């Protein structure tokens, strides 16, 4: 009886230890992803500055900004729902990151418990949370910003989904690990991006990706020169800091999803490299392009990328 008790305790202890290690892994993973995302944003600022013939901020500027913002003493809040929206806004992308195959970096395996549909719907929790907070803020600029953001979402979701579904049609699965396994990791000829007819779907989705990341020419929602930074107009201090973190996490999730689907799947670390490459391409366009009007952007997104992606999907399905 004594031994049984001891064994029971030991197993309890082991379980507890296991849970602790798992929690630590999750925290490390999320921290790592957000840090890499912030680093990407630093690259973005440096890159844009160099394109504009400026020196630009140091590459770790986003970290400084986040520390400063989170340390602000009295950020303005409107209502407890404002805080709730912001927490939801950061929590959604973090949960989303846990369902991406990038989590094998720290040896987690949660991504096998979800699929593409879940990821697509989990990806909107964050924007919706911030939209709620902007709505609570009651600024007309915020309302315009949210209206534009959601309009853009309707615009880019169509080509993006068509592109992703083409891959689903090809591989016959919604599971990210299977999509990943269907490609060869380092040989570009084995990537979905460079296979006919998936290349059409990939191009369509890639154009839409610019909208997903809300980079130019699809950055109508946060247009500081037009609508006083739109959604963000009421966010200051830690709220804005959390929004930057959310932006970093979303960047990793969106680019990671695209890399897994089109750029040869993942064994985690290589995906980071691919994410960097994708990001550089995106910000190159961002640095030299202007901004569409919202209706122009919507029309453009529902026209060319959609047609290309639809063609890719149809060719894949009927091949």
């Amino acid at each position, binding site marked *: 009886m004594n031994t049984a008790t001891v064994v029971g305790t030991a197993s309890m202890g082991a379980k507890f230890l296991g849970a602790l290690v798992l929690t630590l892994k*999750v*925290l490390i993973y999320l921290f790592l992803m957000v840090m890499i995302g912030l680093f990407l944003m630093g690259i973005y600022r440096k890159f844009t500055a160099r394109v504009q013939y400026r020196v630009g901020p140091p590459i770790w500027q986003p970290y400084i900004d986040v520390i400063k913002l*989170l340390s*602000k003493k*009295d*950020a*303005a*809040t*409107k*209502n407890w*729902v404002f*805080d709730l929206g*912001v927490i*939801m806004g*950061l*929590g*959604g992308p*973090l*949960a989303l990151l846990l*369902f991406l195959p990038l989590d094998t970096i720290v040896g987690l395996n949660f991504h096998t*418990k*979800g*699929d593409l*549909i*879940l990821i697509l*719907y*989990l990806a*909107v*929790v964050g924007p*919706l949370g911030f939209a*709620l907070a902007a*709505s*609570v*803020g*009651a*600024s*007309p600029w915020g*309302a315009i910003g949210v209206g534009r953001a*959601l*309009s853009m*979402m*309707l615009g880019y*979701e*169509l080509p993006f*989904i068509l592109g992703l*579904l083409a891959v*689903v*049609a090809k591989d*016959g*699965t*919604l599971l990210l690990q299977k999509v990943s396994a269907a490609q060869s990791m380092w040989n570009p000829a084995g990537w979905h991006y460079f296979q006919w007819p998936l290349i059409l779907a990939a191009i369509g989705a890639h154009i839409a990706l610019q909208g997903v990341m809300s980079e130019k020419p699809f950055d109508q929602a946060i247009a500081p020169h037009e609508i*006083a930074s739109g959604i963000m*107009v009421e966010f200051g201090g*830690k709220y804005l*800091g959390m929004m930057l973190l959310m932006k970093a996490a979303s960047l990793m999730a969106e680019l990671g999803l695209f890399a897994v689907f089109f750029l040869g799947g993942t064994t985690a670390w290589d995906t980071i490299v691919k994410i960097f490459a994708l990001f550089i391409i995106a910000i190159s366009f961002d640095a030299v392009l202007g901004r569409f*009007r919202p*209706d122009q952007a*919507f029309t453009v997104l529902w026209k060319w990328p959609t047609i290309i992606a*639809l063609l890719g*999907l149809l060719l894949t399905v009927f091949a």
Partner: protein
Amino acid sequence: MGMLTHWSVLTVPMVLVLGSILAALFGLIKNEKAKRVLQMISTTAAAAFALYVNIALVAGWKGVPKMADLKPFTVKLTETLTLSWQYYWITGTFAILVMGVLMFVLAYALETFKDDENTTPFYVLTPLLAAAIYMTLASVNLIALFFSWELMSFVAFLMLLYYDRTKEGGPWLYAFWSGVGAMSMIAGIFLFYLASDGKTGFGLFELMQTVPVLTIKHPYMTLAAVLLLGVPFMIKASIPPFHTWAPRTYGSTHPSVAAFFSAAYSKVGIFAMLMWVYMFVGTVMSGKWVTTLGANFRNMPTAFFILAILLAFGAVFTSLLAFAQKDAMYLLAYSSMGQLMYMVMALVLGIGITVGYQKDMNVTMTVYTLGFFGAIYHAYAHGVFEMAAYMALGAAYKRSGGETEFNKLGAYAHRMPVTFFMGFLAMLSTVSIPLMWGFASKYLIYQAALYGRFFVLSAMALIAGTASFLYAFRYIHGIWWGQPTKGYDFMHSVKEVSAWGIIIALVVMGLTVLGGAIPGQVLNFITGNAVNQMVMQSAMAGGPLLIDKAVYMVNGFSILHFGYLAILFTVGILVALLVYTTSGGSRKVNLDDFYNSAEPYRPEWQVQLIGAFYGPIERVIEPYFKVSIERVYNWLGGIFGWFASYIESWNTGDTRDYTWALAGLIVLLMVLWVF
């Protein structure tokens, strides 16, 4: 227990009628508040009893007889004409939804009816309507179905007529379409009668089995009969092209009435469509049609594929229309139509894929489709979230003095946080945020579409889902947040709903999350274990579907573990909470302290922006909505109107004219007869 053996299918309707009669009697009370409370108690108790009975029957609880032991109710009109009602599991499945919605809507009506509105018609007619719905759900016989259906439509019309808020002719449009449906239904029944040479009865289940036989004998007549019979069902489920009554009818009535209509009454349409799709299967898969309509397009008969595509288009279009609305009632009406189309699309997909799959795999006839259960589950999800959205709107409606337009509402959440949260969760469920009921059900539908390898269809369904974000946000911003449109003094007079309303709101909010957190259990419960049975059957037959209690899985195509989802979602939120709590402080600022130009808000400035919220893309999509079915109907109506007035213009009051006309007619007939 001895008494219980006398229970029949009529027990529930009779209790509901009793509640209605009590409510009518209480309507004589002079004291307005006491009257309302007593009416609410009597009808809600009846509804609660009905709900309990149905749950107990479906779940097989003790204290009530078994489903099979419930006495059917039969009226023998003539030797061949029999009306028959009987309780079966699909009755129970839909009745739980209807009675649950009925209970919540009745109980919450205390919070939605303005002080100057008469509640007696609502409390009297709604249980009656529910009773008629119950009879419709339980009818196993086309004639019985017809009588229940018309009774239901008539009671609904009375309700709409009494609560015609905006006087836009909504009830009359509804009456017109109900009439069209009734005529079409009679014609369909008559054609069935002809096709079966007057031999068979009109049993619903009987028909589902005899339709293939009839089709072989009379292919055209049976197809026509099935299509005619589908018209009233499609009208009730507001499926294009028979949907034009829905927005105006929902939009012009009282929010509580609309809540019951949208959440419960429209589900009769789904139930009927379910029956109809089975008849349709029987038609297209036999006789002359099997090589044309029944030929497989990918994994589904062509007819079903066309139907599904049309429905998906309809869902996209109604969702796009929904976010362009400037009135909350209309927005929810269009949203509801979109969701109903989702459900019917799921039904068509589910049953169609089953049939198509059987043709390929040659497995035995079992219902093991994702779409089938997706439709039923989405009917429940829609019932809960649409009811919650309308109820929350109703509370704001009462407090704003009867406003439903967005530019006259706004900022009510500051005074009514619990009610707002009910509406908010309803919208989260509408847009299918994970862990909400709406997600679990839509997930099944997407899986159905993807399993059948209908990728463009899935993309359309997903885009309809994305469009729902737009209208959901408009609902949240327009009613609950944004700026107060009636000034601060008015807003300070706004009160949160009573404790009773808060309790109801909390229960509804719990339900919204419950169906999304443990979908397997809930689905199994409401279908009376049918899911489990069919899963077992399908597993034995080597079928594709497995709906586990915690996991949705489709033949290796996909997997979603809801337990992990709940845990990881919580982890994400907790980490965000950690960041939130460890970072700097915050101070609460005034609602009106918002301008980036530092100009404080003045109540007289209207910057609500709700009128042109999605202005840019509304302008983009506007040209594509120029072609409207309603306009076609109006055009047709104009022509017929002209024809009628032309005939009327013959009436000169002179008998000689008629004589000449009659003579001319006789001459014409003679000429025709000669040649």
